[in-house]
């Protein structure tokens, strides 16, 4: 999806939210001008519709309009709504009159350039002429239709819908039909399907579509394969924990802890909601093993058999391919990313310099140290000044925890590249940074460590970022705390790249009554909220970097509270982290 389109869609939403005085709604329509920019006046009208009328009723009615002339019916209803809303809002918004005239003028000037006139376009232009105080220029029939749809500000939602029904029957012998399907499903299908009209935005109003979600299914055939593979990975869940461990280790690499250490960690961490879950801390499959895996069994002790072996092989091959893709993506955009690295490094450096911890030392020039002045007078000693020497340590360490569940499939290359940018620039500034990703497969939450604090040149490992499986956010946060213990800095910052929709196929393991509760939706979100709170209690600054749908955005706010940065696309990831850290540096230590 083109950058500009995303930005303009977001801009259109902003118009709507502001006019509706509600930032929580997901509008059914967005309005664009033919050149693809957000249309100020029409989006205002959409927002005002939500402000003044019953949102559910109107949306439902719009969804009942269909047939080959749907665009006509929708267009007429919009003309009616515009007419009524203008009258309602004019009293409190003086700019509306001028905006309306501007809209009408622009629309008409555009019209002259286009040769094809559909009925709705003609009627709309008639409407625009009337706005400008001219004659509508329509034939008698069309003019009658236009005036039948000229609703007034006094009408209620129900009256408007009823009047529209009557008009449509009277002039077009059309009756809107009630959706028979279950509400939710039907609605979603309609929104997505209807979006294809975006190419010819002559109508101005376009059905809104969730860009973020669309991204996930954009990659045609490949996506289907990925889905199948994801299914495969999720499918073969068996109860044998040893087998699961072998399987996961074969896919993601050996644990960095010994069996005993591992047990201890799990005893401490995998409790409550995460009872019976397991953790795998790994640095990935190491080079030598990687090469031989293709023709050798993953674990010599106990061979993995049949389908599993095939799955593991497939997965490992896919990982290699993805790694290659990640690299290629970076190479192709090298100039861009290098530039990002440079900019980010510079900005952080300036910040660090400004605040760097300073220790006073006696000097013969610098700031006068009052309590030592007497020495100059009586002892003739020149060292009565202080100079502040800077130290290298920034006083904090940064942990970046990236969601690597299959919902990230479509942007693995970008995530890898952005993480590389971050690791490189923070490293150059001397900020200790640890980067890992998490995903959950077969009851194992895999913490893949790409770079730990002390490593200096581990960045290329980030190209091994691969997305698969679920995300059990709560457990991942606990595991991250375990990893953070290695930091010797006084302050720890944890940045979480998330889509705020934790879910795992392993159920919540607490209490006899809840045995079958799935780790999804509310349960998962509440668990994540609790974990974030707990980490903060332990003095870790947890900041969410959120990218996902508007609806999940609300969940993200619940989880992270104010410590949340929303990004519109993954390209802003490094930038956003930079900004957060900059503020962190500027405000100093707690």
């Amino acid at each position, binding site marked *: 999806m083109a950058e500009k389109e995303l930005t303009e869609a977001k*801009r259109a939403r902003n118009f709507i939210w502001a006019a509706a005085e509600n930032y929580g709604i997901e509008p059914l329509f967005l309005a664009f001008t033919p050149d693809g920019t957000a249309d100020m006046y029409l989006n205002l009208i959409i927002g005002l519709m939500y402000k003044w009328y019953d949102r559910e009723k109107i949306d439902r009615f719009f969804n009942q309009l269909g047939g080959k002339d749907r665009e006509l019916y929708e267009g007429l209803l919009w003309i009616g709504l515009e007419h009524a809303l203008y009258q309602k809002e004019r009293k409190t918004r003086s700019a509306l009159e001028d905006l309306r005239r501007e809209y009408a003028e622009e629309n008409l000037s555009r019209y002259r350039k286009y040769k094809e006139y559909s009925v709705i376009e003609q009627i709309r232009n008639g409407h625009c002429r009337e706005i400008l105080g001219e004659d509508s220029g329509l034939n008698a029939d069309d003019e009658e239709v236009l005036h039948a749809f000229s609703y007034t500000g006094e009408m209620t939602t129900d009256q408007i819908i009823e009047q529209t029904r009557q008009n449509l029957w009277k002039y077009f012998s059309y009756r809107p039909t009630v959706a028979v399907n279950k509400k939710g499903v039907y609605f979603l299908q309609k929104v997505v399907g209807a979006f294809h009209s975006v190419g010819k935005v002559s109508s101005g109003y376009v059905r809104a579509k969730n860009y973020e979600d669309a991204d996930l299914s954009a990659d045609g055939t490949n996506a289907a394969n990925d889905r199948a593979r994801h299914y495969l990975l999720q499918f073969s869940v068996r109860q044998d924990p040893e087998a699961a461990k072998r399987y996961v280790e074969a896919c993601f690499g050996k644990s960095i802890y010994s069996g005993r250490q591992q047990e201890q960690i799990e005893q401490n961490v995998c409790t409550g909601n995460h009872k019976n879950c397991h953790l795998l801390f790994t640095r990935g499959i190491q080079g030598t093993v990687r090469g031989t895996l293709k023709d050798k069994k993953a674990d010599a002790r106990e061979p993995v058999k049949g389908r599993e072996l095939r799955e593991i092989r497939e997965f490992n091959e896919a990982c290699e391919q993805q790694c290659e893709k990640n690299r290629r993506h970076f190479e192709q955009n090298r100039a861009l990313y290098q530039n990002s690295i440079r900019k980010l490094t510079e900005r952080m450096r300036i910040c660090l310099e400004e605040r760097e911890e300073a220790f006073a030392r006696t000097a013969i020039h610098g700031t006068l140290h*009052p309590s030592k002045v007497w020495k100059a007078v009586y002892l003739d000693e020149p060292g009565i000044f202080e100079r502040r020497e800077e130290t290298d340590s920034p006083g904090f360490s940064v942990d970046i925890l990236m969601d690597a569940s299959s919902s990230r499939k479509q942007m693995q290359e970008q995530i890898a590249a952005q993480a590389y940018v971050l690791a490189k620039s923070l490293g150059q500034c001397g900020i200790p940074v640890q980067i890992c990703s998490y995903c959950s497969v077969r009851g194992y939450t895999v913490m893949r460590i790409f770079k730990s604090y002390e490593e200096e040149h581990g960045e290329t490992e980030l190209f091994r970022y691969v997305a698969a499986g679920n995300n059990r956010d709560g457990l991942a946060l606990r595991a991250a705390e375990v990893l953070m213990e290695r930091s010797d800095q006084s302050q720890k910052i944890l940045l979480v790249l998330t889509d705020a929709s934790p879910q795992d196929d392993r159920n919540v393991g607490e209490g006899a009554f809840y045995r079958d509760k799935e780790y999804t939706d509310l349960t998962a979100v509440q668990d994540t909220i609790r974990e974030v709170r707990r980490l903060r209690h332990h003095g870790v600054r947890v900041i969410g970097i959120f990218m996902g749908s508007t609806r999940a955005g609300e969940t993200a706010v619940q989880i992270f509270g*104010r410590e949340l940065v929303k990004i519109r696309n993954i390209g802003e990831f490094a930038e956003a982290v930079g900004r957060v850290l900059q503020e962190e540096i500027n405000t100093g230590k707690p």
Partner: protein
Amino acid sequence: MLDKLRELGIREDLIEGIAAFREKYQVADIYRSRIPGPEQLYYGKEVWEQAITAILCGENLLLVGQKATGKNLFAENLAGVFGRPRWDVSFHVNMDAASLIGMDTFRGGEVTFRPGPVYAAAKAGGFAVLDEVNMARSEALAVLHATLDFRRSIDVPGYERIELHPATRFIATMNYGYAGTKELNEALVSRFAVIQMPVISKSSLIRLLRAHAPALGKDGAGELAEMFLELYKKCENGEISSKALDLRGLLGAVGLIERGLDIYTALDMGLTNKSFDPYEQTLIRDTIHTRISRKMTRSEWFGE
């Protein structure tokens, strides 16, 4: 100034309380210049009543609120209303105990104590405004603990221990924003009565604008107020940062418009350009344009 409070509809017994406070604690002449004048007034009856009651009860105040909620203006107003000299301390990361209480200096051939703002305010019974108190490190603020709680004293190592003048109050302000703002430590917060500063109301904003530029008509002020509150909402919902949420900038822009600058240009200078992100600027400009018509001119607002 007490008359102005009456205009705001503040309870008469509180106003009498203030009068009695002023009567009881006279200000020495050398500090008279430190008493703030009544240039601008904070409009918000509830906040006023909360604060006056707390001060009359001997409490120190912590004003918490987002940007542009009038924290500093209100702190200044309080000092003005109670007729106390005011000391301002702006907090920053490198703040230390010495810059609050005072430090050694060399005068007349010997090392003497040079009082800092907190010490001076404590002696003179002033109001010390601790601006952006959360910007300093907690260690630096620990020296204030004894000063702020029931002990009401300052112990300067190597010098005498002084008791606070009974009229001394501390008014701290603190910004609470998005990612990057710091929490205040509990020990310190517990020593204050905390007032959550509300977002300025539309009517107060209109009054403020018109007090700043008396020639500005009601309609113009109304549009500007609506526009500013919409920006507020955008910021609250995380669509834009708080950079453009600049009340000072808005007032400045009104001044520019009155002087003859084009409305959009003036608002760009006062608000939009405070953000350096082009996308954010677009959103801010969009908000302005949906509220204020392109055709609006200065003369329509300033009624000539």
